[in-house]
C-alpha cells in the first residue's frame, strides 16, 4: 500500500505549478499526479495513484520509454522527451480540440524513503510556442513566395515594359523624319505629345524600379564624409542648374554619418535635385545644406527658397505618386521623395518637411534611431 499522505506532503509543491507533474516508482506504479494533470486529462489523482502507468498509457512500456526510464531508476542523469519527438507523453487535448504539445524532463529522486529511486516527470505545455513556430514557418514561406513573385514582377517590368515605349518613341520619330513634308505643321505637336508621354512613362518605370530596388537592397553601413558626399551630389546635378543663378551653402561643420553609401547618395541627389528643381522660378536660387543638433540626435537639412508647399500637405510629400504641383509647373513622377523616405526608414531614421507656399521648403532627416 502507498502512503499517500507522506507522498503528497513531499511532492505537494508540484501541485500548484503550471506544469504537468507525476512521479513513478521503479515498478511503474504512479505515486503522485498533480492537479494540472487532473485538469489536462480528466483523470483524478485518486483514480491513478497506486496503478501501473502502463494500464492507461501503454507506451511507457515500449523500449523507447522503458530504456530511458531504466537509466533514471539507476540514478542516471535527467532525460528529456522533447516536444519534437515525443509530443504527447500524456495525451490530452486543448479546449479547442487540438492535442496538447508537451516537452518533458524526467529526473531521478532518491530522497523519499531511503534507497528507492523515483522518476519525477515535469511536463511543459508548449502548444502555444509550437503553434507560433508553425505559424512563423507558414508566414515565412508565404513571404518568400511573395518576394519571389515580386522579383519576377520587377524582372518583367524591367525587361518588357520599356520595349513598347521604345517603339512608340522610335516610330513616331521615324514617321516625322520620313514623312516630314506630308505631315501638316499642326500635327507636329501631336507627335511631340506622343513622344513626350512615352518618355515620361519610361521615367516613371525607372523611378518605380528604383523604389523597389531600395526596398530590396541590403543595408551596408559605412562611415560617410557627409560634406564630400553633398559636394559630389551637387556636381552630379550640375547639368540641371547650368546657366542659372544658384547660391549653394554647405555648412562646414557637417558631421560624419553612418549610412549605406549608395542609398545615402540617392537621398542627397533626390533632395538636392528637388531643391534645384523647385527653385527654378527664383531669380537667385538659394540652397543650404546643414545640420541641427537636438540632444544627441543629429538632423541634417536641405533648405531652399523655391516654390515650397502648403504646410498642411506636409504629410503627403513622401507618399508614392503624391505630387503637390502639377507636372506643367514642375516635372516629376512623384516617386523621388518616396525613395528618400524608404532609405531613411531602412536606416532607422526619421524624415520630415516644413514649407510654405512660395517661401521655400526644408527637408530634415536623421539616420539613426533616437537614443533616449
Amino acid at each position: 500500500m502507498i502512503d499517500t499522505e507522506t507522498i503528497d506532503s513531499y511532492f505537494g509543491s508540484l501541485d500548484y505549478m503550471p506544469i504537468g507533474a507525476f512521479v513513478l516508482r521503479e515498478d511503474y506504479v504512479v505515486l503522485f499526479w498533480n492537479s494540472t494533470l487532473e485538469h489536462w486529462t480528466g483523470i483524478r489523482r485518486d483514480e491513478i495513484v497506486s496503478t501501473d502507468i502502463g494500464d492507461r498509457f501503454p507506451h511507457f512500456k515500449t523500449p523507447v520509454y522503458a530504456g530511458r526510464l531504466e537509466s533514471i531508476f539507476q540514478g542516471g542523469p535527467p532525460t528529456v522527451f522533447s516536444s519534437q519527438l515525443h509530443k504527447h507523453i500524456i495525451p490530452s487535448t486543448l479546449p479547442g480540440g487540438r492535442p496538447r504539445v508537451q516537452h518533458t524532463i524526467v529526473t531521478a529522486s532518491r530522497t523519499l524513503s531511503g534507497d528507492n529511486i523515483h522518476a519525477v516527470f515535469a511536463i511543459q505545455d508548449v502548444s502555444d510556442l509550437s503553434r507560433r513556430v508553425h505559424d512563423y514557418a507558414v508566414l515565412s514561406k508565404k513571404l518568400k513566395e511573395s518576394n519571389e513573385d515580386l522579383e519576377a514582377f520587377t524582372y518583367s517590368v524591367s525587361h518588357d515594359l520599356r520595349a513598347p515605349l521604345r517603339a512608340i518613341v522610335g516610330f513616331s520619330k521615324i514617321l516625322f523624319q520620313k514623312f516630314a513634308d506630308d505631315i501638316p505643321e499642326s500635327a507636329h505637336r501631336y507627335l511631340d505629345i506622343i513622344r513626350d508621354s512615352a518618355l515620361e512613362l519610361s521615367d516613371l518605370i525607372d523611378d518605380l524600379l528604383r523604389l523597389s530596388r531600395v526596398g530590396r537592397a541590403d543595408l551596408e553601413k559605412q562611415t560617410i564624409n557627409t560634406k564630400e558626399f553633398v559636394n559630389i551630389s551637387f556636381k552630379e546635378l550640375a547639368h540641371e542648374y547650368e546657366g542659372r543663378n544658384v547660391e549653394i551653402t554647405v555648412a562646414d561643420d557637417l558631421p560624419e554619418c553612418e549610412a549605406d553609401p549608395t542609398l545615402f547618395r540617392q537621398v542627397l541627389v533626390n533632395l538636392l535635385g528637388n531643391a534645384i528643381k523647385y527653385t527654378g522660378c527664383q531669380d537667385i536660387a538659394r540652397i543650404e545644406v546643414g545640420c541641427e543638433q537636438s540632444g544627441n540626435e543629429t538632423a541634417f537639412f536641405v533648405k531652399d527658397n523655391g516654390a515650397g508647399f502648403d504646410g498642411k500637405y506636409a504629410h503627403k510629400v513622401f507618399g508614392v505618386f503624391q505630387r503637390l504641383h502639377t507636372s506643367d509647373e514642375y516635372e516629376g513622377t512623384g516617386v523621388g521623395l518616396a525613395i528618400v523616405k524608404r532609405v531613411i526608414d531602412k536606416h532607422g531614421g526619421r524624415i520630415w518637411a516644413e514649407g510654405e507656399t512660395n517661401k521655400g521648403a526644408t527637408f530634415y532627416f536623421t539616420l539613426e534611431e533616437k537614443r533616449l
Partner: protein
Amino acid sequence: MMTIANPVEILLVEDNYRDEELALLSLDEYNLANKVEVVRDGEEALDFIFRRGAYADRDPSNPKLILLDLKLPKVDGLEVLREIRSNPETKNVPVVVLTSSKEDQDIKECYELKVNSYIVKPVDFDQFTKSVKELGFYWVLLNEPPPK
C-alpha cells in the same frame, strides 16, 4: 568602304520585331544592315552560332559581333552567353548585351560570363540610334576581331 569578306558580320538576337527594325535602321547608317543575321530566340541563336539545324551549312566563320538580348524565348540570353563562352571555337567572339534591363543582377551575371559590353537600350529614339550605330561601327569597322 572596307571590303567585307564575311557574309554575316553581326548576329542580332532579338525577339521583339520593333526593336529589331529600330536596330536595323540604326545599323544602316553605316551600311551595316545587310550584314546582319537576325534570330528570334536563344535556341535559334545557338543553332546559328554552332552551325546546327537550319544553319548547318552556313559559312563557318564567326560573326564579328553578337548583339544579344537577355530575355528571350526558349533559351535566355545568359544561357546563350554561357554556351558561347564555354566553347573553344566561340569563346572569344565579341558579345554585346543589348537589353532593357538595368537590374544590377543582370549586369553582374553578364560580366561574370565575360560579356564584352553591356548596353541598356535607351527608350529615346535618338539615343537608341546613336548607341546602336556606334556599337556597329566600333565592333565591325574599328575593332580587330579575334584571329580565326
